[in-house]
């Protein structure tokens, strides 16, 4: 069920696409599911990650016809279903939070659907309480799927919230629990698609330079909103400063800490440039770390640049994801001489 090692090659990393990447086209109905799978296959991706709440009208009621179409597409394009991203709507009702039992039931519902879609991995959204995964784990184990906590910025393996999950994982020692890092944790440079949009919306160039410069120097973003306010910045400037506190940079080697529990990776990106690199995330060093750690799993494209350019530019998610896959291929190639 896991990705298959490539025999003589020096790594065991496969390439995949999360359909999250095509949210712009799905939203505007310019691409349908078939187009998306065809596009992924066309760039040599073998693995498909799906967000059912995005791709399946009528969710959580999914017809057998829809499931049959899904598997038909996989067969037709030679791809395999790999991951299923679930949400957990603890605030479903206006005046009360879902009980623990209702939360576990929500995860079980998603496991049932994952079994139908044949996705062996489930993305547990970072907000999922450790106790909920603990109590859903036996069901997942019986179903032969894994529940993988998406470790998303600003979280990390020493964070109090993630430590609660680690405690459960240590106690339960279940093959059904693990992690799925989102590479948005490793934003080394401030994404220029974000600062460029602020400029289009009237941000002051000197304040944009201050925010970007502070972030890029990995300086103290505490008080950055205040600094922008004191400098006479307006709402757009202050919002940019706030965004600088939402991105995080940490050493990609921190991925090694839980490599034995890492079964999937969401390869978040904001902008693949024309020269084939990601503007803000150091994919070259990240891939080196993954190979060094013996990561066996998928790099699953998660394009999130559309929201930052859609106001002014046409969005071409397929082109962006294609560039990322060309980069993956180039970087993985460097490890296919058996030295990994």
């Amino acid at each position, binding site marked *: 069920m896991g990705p298959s090692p490539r025999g003589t090659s020096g790594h065991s990393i496969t390439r995949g696409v999360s359909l999250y990447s095509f949210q712009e086209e799905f*939203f505007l109905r310019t691409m349908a599911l078939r187009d998306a799978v065809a596009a992924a296959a066309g760039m040599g991706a073998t693995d498909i990650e799906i967000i059912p709440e995005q791709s399946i*009208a009528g969710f959580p009621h999914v017809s057998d016809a829809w499931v049959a179409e899904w598997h038909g597409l996989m067969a037709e394009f030679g791809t395999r279903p790999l991951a299923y991203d679930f949400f957990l*709507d*603890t605030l479903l*009702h*206006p005046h009360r939070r879902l009980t623990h039992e209702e939360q576990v039931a929500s995860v079980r519902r998603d496991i049932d659907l994952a079994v139908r879609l044949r996705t062996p991995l489930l993305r547990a959204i970072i*907000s999922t309480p450790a106790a909920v995964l603990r109590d859903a784990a036996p069901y997942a184990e019986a179903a032969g799927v894994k529940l993988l906590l998406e470790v998303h910025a600003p979280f990390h393996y020493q964070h109090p919230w993630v430590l609660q999950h680690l405690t459960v994982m240590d106690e339960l020692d279940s093959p059904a629990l693990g992690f799925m890092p989102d590479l948005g944790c490793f934003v080394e440079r401030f994404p220029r698609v974000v600062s460029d949009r602020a400029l289009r919306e009237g941000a002051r160039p000197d304040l944009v330079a201050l925010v970007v410069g502070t972030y890029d120097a990995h300086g103290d973003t505490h008080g950055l909103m205040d600094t922008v306010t004191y400098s006479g910045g307006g709402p757009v400037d202050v919002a940019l400063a706030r965004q600088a506190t939402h991105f995080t940079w940490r050493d990609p080697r921190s991925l090694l800490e839980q490599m034995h529990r890492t079964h999937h990776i969401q390869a978040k990106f904001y902008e693949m440039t024309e020269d084939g690199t990601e503007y803000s995330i150091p994919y070259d060093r990240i891939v080196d770390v993954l190979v060094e750690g013996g990561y066996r799993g998928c790099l699953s494209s998660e394009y999130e640049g559309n929201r930052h350019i859609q106001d002014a530019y046409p969005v071409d998610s397929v082109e962006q994801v294609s560039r990322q896959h060309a980069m993956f291929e180039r970087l993985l190639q460097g490890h296919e001489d058996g030295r990994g």
Partner: protein
Amino acid sequence: MFEKYVIVPGTLRNTVAEGRSTGYEIGVRMPYYRGLALSMVEDVALTVDGVRALAEATTVTVHGNSYRLTELGAVTDDRWELGEVAVVRVAHPGGLAPGEHDVEVVQRLRISYMPVPGGGRARAVVELSD
């Protein structure tokens, strides 16, 4: 996110019953990257030419199913799908005058993993269609 696509051009119309304008309607998308049960749609507030529609006078229609805005909280078994153009109707006897109107839509979404409300604000000048 998706602010630009929230207000759908060409969908602003007066609603008519027995030959009289009873109000107006407009097509609205949700600024979010997945569908959401309607119970988590806390508000869809329309303001046309500076006049804010009352929640009590507003209904939301998704794929043919209509709900009062004030009753959405109980609707856990129907969803506003990704990119779906919902029809938001406002009871406003007399309707809107012909020509262009300044339309603002403020949406508030209860997103379980966010410590602050989701949604957003969109504004556009829209021509009344027939």
